[in-house]
């Protein structure tokens, strides 16, 4: 059914669109999707994550929002911090809720649809160049049907003073919605930017959000990128982020998965120059019957780069966590340092963890380690706290907070750290 919905959506789109280079790309992407279909568990990359439930649901891909988004956002993090705000509701740019406070006119913070005509040259130079559609059904789907998303261009030597907040709200008050947000971020030489990507949902029907992000970091630039998934209820979320780093760049990424029925994060780094630093941090706390799947891949294509990855999970109820971290050290990428760790705490008998830390190394002068642990809360620290008169549930929270703190301390926005702490409090 999803497949038919997509087909209708694409035909509708084709009827409306004028012929341009862009629509040719969409056509190509659609054919790729048609050829591949939704990934099944036979596909090694989707071994533990089954999308069958999606295939049997009807989704609307263009629909208006009837919920009161403004009221919904009143108490959200968005309104607590000073930031540039880009708000999208069901894939459509919402100018009323968005706000750009950046004063420098050479920095473009806008929506993709607008950028396509206003900044066509930059757009055409970068769009679709990093996120591959070949053999990737969901990327193809996004490219074929994408509606809108954020467009950020930071020119050489510029720094965006305040963080850029990209908020996506899926409003399923009336029907099941299918959203295809697409963000394109270009950070030129020696520039710097701080991005926060946030996902919310409204309404009681199903939501399927299929995101593609392309982030290009030119030489000597610095990017902070946080991705927070807070879509509640029947929400299915697939995120593909491709970060392309040129020489001497620093990219710090944090993924927080706080909610969602099925969340799949694909985070890909490609280190295309020497002396790059890439940091990947993630925290997931699935509960109920939720499934969180983090697939990361770091391609060390050039020598002398560092990457460090730490993903932590607290598993409750009947939740399932999947982690697949792949480090590829290409031929001649000597002096690579790549570290990777995945740690899980199981709080329930029925939770499941499937983890696969994977290394593929084609160069000899490298230092690569990976590790994975799965266990319960340590008894000894628990005993220590209990023996000092701290009740069990308080002690448990303290220990779990400490466990999550390794990730929380990487976040440079105090308000966000606070939100995370509240979430942990709420969940336990």
């Amino acid at each position, binding site marked *: 059914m999803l497949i038919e919905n997509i087909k209708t959506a694409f035909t509708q789109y084709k009827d409306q669109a004028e012929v341009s280079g862009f629509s040719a790309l969409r056509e190509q992407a659609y054919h790729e999707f048609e050829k591949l279909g939704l990934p099944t568990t036979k596909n090694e990359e989707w071994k533990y994550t089954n999308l069958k439930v999606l295939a049997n649901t009807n989704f609307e891909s263009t629909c208006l929002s009837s919920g009161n988004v403004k009221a919904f956002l009143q108490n959200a993090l968005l309104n607590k911090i000073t930031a540039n705000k880009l708000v999208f509701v069901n894939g459509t740019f919402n100018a009323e809720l968005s706000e750009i406070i950046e004063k420098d006119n050479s920095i473009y913070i806008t929506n993709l649809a607008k950028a396509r005509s206003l900044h066509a040259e930059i757009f055409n130079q970068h769009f679709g160049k990093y996120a591959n559609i070949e053999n990737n059904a969901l990327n193809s789907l996004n490219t074929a049907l994408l509606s809108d998303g954020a467009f950020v261009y930071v020119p050489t030597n510029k720094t965006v003073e305040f963080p850029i907040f990209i908020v996506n709200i899926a409003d399923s008050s009336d029907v099941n919605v299918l959203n295809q947000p697409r963000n394109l971020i270009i950070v030129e030489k020696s520039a710097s930017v701080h991005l926060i990507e946030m996902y919310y949902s409204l309404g009681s029907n199903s939501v399927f959000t299929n995101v593609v992000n392309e982030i290009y970091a030119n030489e000597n630039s610095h990017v902070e990128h946080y991705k927070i998934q807070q879509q509640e209820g029947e929400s299915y979320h697939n995120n593909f982020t491709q970060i392309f780093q040129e020489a001497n760049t620093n990219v710090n990424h944090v993924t927080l998965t706080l909610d969602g029925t099925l969340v799949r994060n694909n985070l890909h780094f490609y280190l295309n120059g020497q002396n790059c630093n890439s940091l990947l941090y993630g925290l997931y706390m699935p509960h109920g019957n939720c499934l969180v799947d983090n697939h990361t891949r770091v391609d060390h294509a050039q020598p002398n780069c560092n990457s460090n990855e730490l993903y932590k999970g607290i598993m409750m109820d009947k939740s399932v966590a999947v982690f697949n971290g792949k480090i590829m050290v290409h031929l001649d990428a000597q002096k690579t340092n790549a570290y990777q760790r995945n740690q899980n705490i199981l709080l329930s008998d029925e939770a499941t*963890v499937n*983890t696969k830390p994977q*290394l593929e*190394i*084609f160069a*000899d002068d490298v230092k690569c380690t990976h590790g994975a642990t799965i266990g*319960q809360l340590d008894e000894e620290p628990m005993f220590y706290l209990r023996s000092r008169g701290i009740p069990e549930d308080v002690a448990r929270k303290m220990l779990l907070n400490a466990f999550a703190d390794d990730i929380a301390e990487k976040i440079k926005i105090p308000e966000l750290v606070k939100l995370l702490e509240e979430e942990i409090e709420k969940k336990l």
Partner: protein
Amino acid sequence: MSDTQEVDIIDQVVSQEYKYGFSTDIEMETAPMGLSEDIVRFISSKKNEPEWMLEWRLKAYRYWLTLEEPNWQNFDLKPINYQDIIYYAAPKEKIKLDSLDQVDPELLKTFEKLGISLSEQKRLSGVAVDAVFDSVSIATTFKDQLYEKGVIFCAISEALHEHPELVKKYIGSVVPYTDNYFSALNAAVFSDGSFVYIPKGVRCPMELSTYFRINAENTGQFERTLIIADDNSYVSYLEGCTAPMRDENQLHAAVVELIAMEKAEIKYSTVQNWYPGDKDGKGGIYNFVTKRGSCEGAHSKISWTQVETGSAITWKYPSCILKGDYSTGEFFSVAVTNNRQIADTGTKMIHIGKHTKSRIVSKGISAGKSHNSYRGLVKVNKRAENARNHTQCDSMLIGDRSGAHTFPYIEINNKTAQVEHEASTSKIGEDQIFYCNQRGIGTEEAVGLIVNGFCKEVLNQLPMEFAVEAQKLLAVSLEGSVG
């Protein structure tokens, strides 16, 4: 160390000859080339097998026909033409042998050359050997002495006649023919192999050993080993193998099944040195083996130790099914690849019983243009309370054209499980070499020391006789290869 020196040393290693590459000129009886139901029947009738065995083989063969060659491995495999293989080859020797005197002297010489003594006078070595030449078990030593203790150690074809009830009960119980492509093929055409039964409460008085040799051209070797350790028993089993140098790739698809009853312990050690092919990757053995042990009873233990230095492609995952409560599975592996060799190996630890423990130590060393992959699964089932696993897989890279890969799968369904996985990849540090040089130890020797130290945890697990052989093998395969 300068680059040129480094290149020199690597060249030396690359040019290292395979010393078991001779072939024996002996009269052979072979089946016609190719695979069909007739061939399966031919093999079965050659062995005078009971009807049920033939039925089982045919079922396996028909099942195999429905399968496709697997393609998930981390290397390119040219499609194998299964009609180009001779599935049965045996030295022409029809009379049943009573003593070693009747064995073809040419054959005895071959084994002498390989450093395996079949003559029972050499009791000092204290190892009972079952020698398998191409498809047929040639001789089993120390048989009588073992029989006194109640230990059955013989060729599986013999066991089929003498202990049909045991074979019928256990064959295919751990590795059913439906398990995978190569296990189905093996079940259909297996020619011989070893059979071991250790009765209740018996500690096998000596190491048991099988020596496999592929000699004939164009043949495949498909042996099957079945080891059953009854309650409270212990056995240590060794396996070694070599093959002549030939330009074609030869297929070796064996199946090993281990069954450990209550409080029994099986230790299975392999030193695999099949012909690895020449330096351009021409020829060599495809070593596609299914090895699996089942800890049936409580407190049982199965331990796999392997030293893999040979074969063009090694593709195997010796596994443990931990069914009994408090059972233990262990896997110790050293895989060394050189030139264009490929190793895709690892283990599966399936925790089913409560309080089960497993330990995995895997050391991969890749040199030249070779690729070494560790692929493993640790699975803790829902009811496997308090399962414990520790996995360590380290890789060492020698030369900048080699590759090391790890694919560890960890699937945990129980919160009381404690699972740890660590892995690292490194090369021999210049400072380590410098340290040795400084103390008057030459670079070559230093490399040997460091590699041996790197593998020590695994080599320590080998029985004495094999530890020495394995250390020598490592030295030969890697002599001074690092700078």
